[in-house]
């Protein structure tokens, strides 16, 4: 399956920065929490670079 983004909701400041840069529209800021849609995530890692909080990470999934 490859790499996917995951969010640590305890670190996330729900600012939406990752949503603004996701080329696959895989992230959504819903009211006060971040949702990552695995089926859309391409594993590019752009959101991890963007996150001001270090709340996002890439993980290997199978």
């Amino acid at each position, binding site marked *: 399956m490859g790499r996917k983004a995951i969010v640590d909701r305890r670190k996330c*400041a729900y*600012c939406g920065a990752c*949503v*603004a*840069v996701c080329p696959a529209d895989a992230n959504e800021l*819903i009211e006060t929490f971040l949702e990552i849609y695995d089926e859309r995530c391409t594993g590019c890692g752009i959101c991890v670079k*963007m996150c001001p*909080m270090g709340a996002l990470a890439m993980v290997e999934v199978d």
Partner: protein
Amino acid sequence: MYDVVVVGAGPAGSMAAKTAAEQGLNVLLVEKRQEIGTPVRCAEGISRESIEKFFEVDKKWIAAEVVGARIYAPDKTEIVMSEDMAGNEVGYVLERKIFDRHVARLAAKAGAEVYVKTTMIDFERKDGKVKLKLRKLGEEWEVETKILIGADGVESKIGRKAGIIKTLKLNEVESCAQYLMTGLDIDENYTHFYLGREIAPGGYAWIFPKGNGSANVGIGVLPKMAEKTAREYLDAFIEKEGIEGKIVEFVAGAVPVYGEIETAVADNIMLAGDAAYHADPITGGGIANALSAGYYAGKVAAEAVKRNDFSANFLRKYDDLWKNDFGRKLRRNKKLQLKFIEMDDALLNKLAGAIAGKNLREMSVAAIVKELLKAHPKLLWDLKDLF
């Protein structure tokens, strides 16, 4: 059916809703958060002129007034910009939590309906109008509108789905973190800007006073150039500067530094504020342009309703208005930003040294660049016609 649905109750959205409602339109303003104005995602600074253009200033939403700005090069060479006379405040640091609610209330007072904790899940343009799917407290329903104004922030769903804006690349956006600190020992008459690749690669750090020893202490970095998170850069900055105080609030966010987009409209749709990447690419300031854009969008919406024409072609009037107002400045400051991010700390020190001690009376980016052009014309040669 609504004349206008505005998504996002920040300065751009509330201003658009207020303006459209004042023109007699049937307006709905939707905000996904349960509280308007929080979290702020903003350093809250704005020039006095920009705010007084639209509002009678109310001390309730002004945290502090400043007489100028101090800009620090990496070696601490200081550029001071201020008006001639002490007591002549040129800028405000807002209390956005109160200000944003104030503007939303003005929209409501003008007749707009306001729904908070309400998310726009989806929209579809059909038969010359827009069908929106909304959700509040788990309940979903549909509304129809002639015009949809997307003031839904840098993460704009509307702009992307309508194909108006492109997703930001990591060199077109600042990753930002900010603490509200208290118990600080700072000069509260000025906003403070700290430059340097080491401190804030591709951006800067700031201290914006909020009165009584409090201030927004924040940082923006360009993710393309950054080697760690904005929060880590912020902590390093605070430690390096020896800033002592207690942190009483923490926010993060993204600021678009894209420059001018070609168009902010599509059939039935207008984008305003951060959703249209209206923030200034060099300062990151977004409130002033957001207010202006919202105002123009509201005005054009009223004209469109009168003519019963919601085509992109007609809505381009809105493009003309915001572009005439601040489009040129976005273009110009984008060029400057591209130049700025190439500057290493040695060059920043040299440039600051060349104009330190000069009396910069005008509080603007242009004033600095004009002085720099006098001191080092070759370094900024390609910008000379812009300033």
